[in-house]
């Protein structure tokens, strides 16, 4: 039985296809439309999923939708700023709902006349819970979902056992740790729903003690029972224009940061404090989840579950024996969740619990054959070398990385979720002091303070990082560098960011944050054979089983999807080399774009 899961019309539209409980394909719409966080109907993603399975819509038995609009729309109606001035805005919002959000079933019916199955709706947090539990490696587990808001809820505690999920408790809007984090993200000059990870990266630069008690006293607090209290006068979750009020500026004594404004110590200290408060809240929720369910394992999903610093601390606290986090924890992953929930509600087929989980390492997106890549490269006049033997390609790439080159990797199936895990990645030498700045400023055109994540060979993980578990294959837990690999330095918090960044912090400075933390991705032969062999080769030459990994995109754009996107990435940035399957391209060999194209591209970057 094929079931298609859909998530759309809020942010990060996605589609996922499952067959008898097995995830066949999943993709986010943004990758095809090239519009970051695209929320439109996931027509391309659906087409891809059906293509991957080799079926048509007529073969699909159920289409599942990830949230109950009968709950979410009244909540939105109720929480909109109801005053005369906002009526035009309200009219447009209602018009949008009338056309799309309330008509998902009708849109599906009109677009896919050959679909003869049923249309089912799954609650937002139930979709998250299902996405967290069903693909997890646990037969039984507590499930904690935390996000901004979905339907009318902001968090839930559930228990999963075999085929069943029972939601036990939930937290009502507007008490929301996710919305608190998003509101503070906008206060710090970043975009809500996409800039949160930048704040997470900024936090280690700040002194958390300065604003911590003020935030807990006035803005958000949690007691030992997990009861959350949010200072509603400081936030404006109902408004479209701003998520916070003037009172917030007053209580913090700091002006909100404009997007282009330089980051100063105040911003860093606020980021550090709000991150610390969020970690405390998540920990309290986890303790509550353990008390309510009595389980020893935990599965997590929802936007807040992408906070890998918080996840790492939770893992180190050992409240649960094991923690598994859905790699596509945001709303896009709910497409998988609602499809799986729909399946296990309608089928008696027993759930298969795989020891390594059922997400297929999150490689669920499109792949391209050598013939397709070859045809494309010829069509654009690209200059490339072909490596029939993978070992030779790996040797060549290793040599280039050691020489300081930054290499794009485009191979196999695209990842599902916000992280690049080796299929659509940019890699470099972690030992070089300049790698972080080069990648940030010359390739990704993003803020220089943001750290990079390391690929680490599974076999050597214990030599380099403390308490890393095998579950860390999705880059969802932050781990601390072993003391023996650290270099002691005096971090002067009053110095500008760039000066603080230039200090050598460890043997692998490009992937070590100021607090010696790193967003580790454990790579094994099973999870990604190509990257594992590349790591082995790099280790043989350098004695370091680590490579820098960052997503293959530039600021403001989604991760690349097609060979065309990847090739564009090569010629339009300062990336040195590009691997597309067995083809290896050097930027220096390509016909570089004329000034006009480059100018256009520059404008796109500035828009972000």
């Amino acid at each position, binding site marked *: 039985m094929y079931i298609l899961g859909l998530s759309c019309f809020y942010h990060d539209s996605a589609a996922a296809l499952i067959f008898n409980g097995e995830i066949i394909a999943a993709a986010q719409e943004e990758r095809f439309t090239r519009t970051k966080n695209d929320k439109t109907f996931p027509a391309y993603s659906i087409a891809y999923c059906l293509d991957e399975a080799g079926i048509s819509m007529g073969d699909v038995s159920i289409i599942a939708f990830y949230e109950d609009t009968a709950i979410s729309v009244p909540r939105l109606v109720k929480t909109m700023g109801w005053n005369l001035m906002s009526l035009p805005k309200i009219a447009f919002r209602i018009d949008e709902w009338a056309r799309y959000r309330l008509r998902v079933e009708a849109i599906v019916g009109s677009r896919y006349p050959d679909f003869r199955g049923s249309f089912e709706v799954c609650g937002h947090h139930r979709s998250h819970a299902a996405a967290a539990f069903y693909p997890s490696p646990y037969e039984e587990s507590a499930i904690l979902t935390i996000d901004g808001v979905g339907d009318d809820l902001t968090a839930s505690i*559930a228990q999963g056992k075999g085929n069943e999920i029972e939601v036990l408790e939930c937290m009502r809007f507007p008490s929301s740790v996710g919305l608190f984090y998003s509101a503070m993200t906008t206060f710090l000059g970043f975009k809500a729903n996409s800039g949160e990870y930048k704040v997470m990266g900024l936090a280690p630069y700040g002194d958390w003690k300065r604003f911590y008690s003020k935030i807990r006293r006035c803005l958000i607090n949690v007691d030992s029972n997990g009861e959350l209290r*949010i200072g509603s006068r400081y936030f404006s979750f109902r408004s479209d224009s701003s998520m916070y009020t003037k009172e917030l500026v007053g209580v913090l004594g700091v002006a909100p940061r404009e997007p282009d404004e330089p980051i100063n110590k105040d911003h860093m200290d606020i980021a550090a404090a709000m991150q610390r408060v969020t970690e405390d809240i998540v920990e309290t929720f986890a303790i509550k989840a353990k008390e309510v369910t009595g389980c020893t394992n935990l599965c997590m999903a929802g936007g807040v579950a992408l906070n890998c610093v918080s996840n790492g601390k939770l893992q180190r606290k050992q409240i649960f024996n094991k923690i598994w986090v859905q790699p596509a924890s945001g709303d896009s992953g709910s497409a998988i969740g609602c499809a799986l929930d729909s399946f296990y509600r309608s089928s008696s087929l027993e759930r298969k619990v795989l020891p390594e989980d059922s997400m297929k390492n999150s490689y669920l997106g499109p792949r391209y054959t050598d013939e397709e890549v070859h045809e494309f490269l010829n069509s654009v006049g690209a200059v490339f070398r072909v490596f029939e033997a993978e070992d030779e390609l790996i040797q060549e790439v290793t040599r280039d990385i050691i020489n300081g080159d930054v290499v794009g990797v485009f191979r196999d199936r695209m990842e599902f979720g916000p992280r690049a895990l080796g299929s659509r990645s940019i890699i470099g030498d972690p030992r070089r002091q300049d790698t972080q700045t080069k990648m940030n400023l010359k390739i990704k055109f993003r803020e220089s303070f943001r750290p990079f994540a390391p690929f680490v060979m599974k076999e050597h993980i214990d030599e380099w990082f403390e308490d890393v578990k095998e579950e860390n294959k999705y880059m969802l837990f932050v781990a601390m560098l072993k003391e023996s690999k650290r270099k002691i330095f005096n971090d002067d918090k009053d110095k500008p960011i760039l000066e603080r960044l230039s200090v050598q912090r460890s043997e692998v400075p490009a992937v070590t944050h100021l607090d010696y933390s790193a967003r580790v991705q454990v790579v094994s032969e099973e999870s990604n054979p190509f990257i594992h062999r590349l790591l082995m080769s790099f280790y043989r030459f350098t004695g370091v089983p680590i490579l820098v990994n960052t997503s293959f995109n530039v600021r403001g754009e989604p991760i690349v999807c097609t060979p065309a*996107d990847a090739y564009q990435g090569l010629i339009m940035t300062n990336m040195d080399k590009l691997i597309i399957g067995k083809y290896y391209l050097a930027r220096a060999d390509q016909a570089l774009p004329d000034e006009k194209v480059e100018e256009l591209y520059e404008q796109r970057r500035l828009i972000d």
Partner: protein
Amino acid sequence: MKNISRLLRWCCANIVLVLLLIVFYIAKRLSHEKARSGNWVKYEAYQAEIKERHESFKFVLSLMKFYYRIAGLKGKVRADKNRRVSDFRYEMF
């Protein structure tokens, strides 16, 4: 002329809808508003409330259908439904 008529219908429909929703919202607020705190609630209790809300939401849905009919609008989605992944793989170049 056709476009002007369509625009007028769209405006009228929106005005009617906004007014009706304001009435609906005020009625709901007067009859149903409860003190909300950040407390965790039992999911069963939440579901019972949701069931009630589903019933009242049918009213909104029928309004929406009415709106949709008088506005004569159709949801627009970008992609051609017959287009498959392979067709747009390389369109950038």
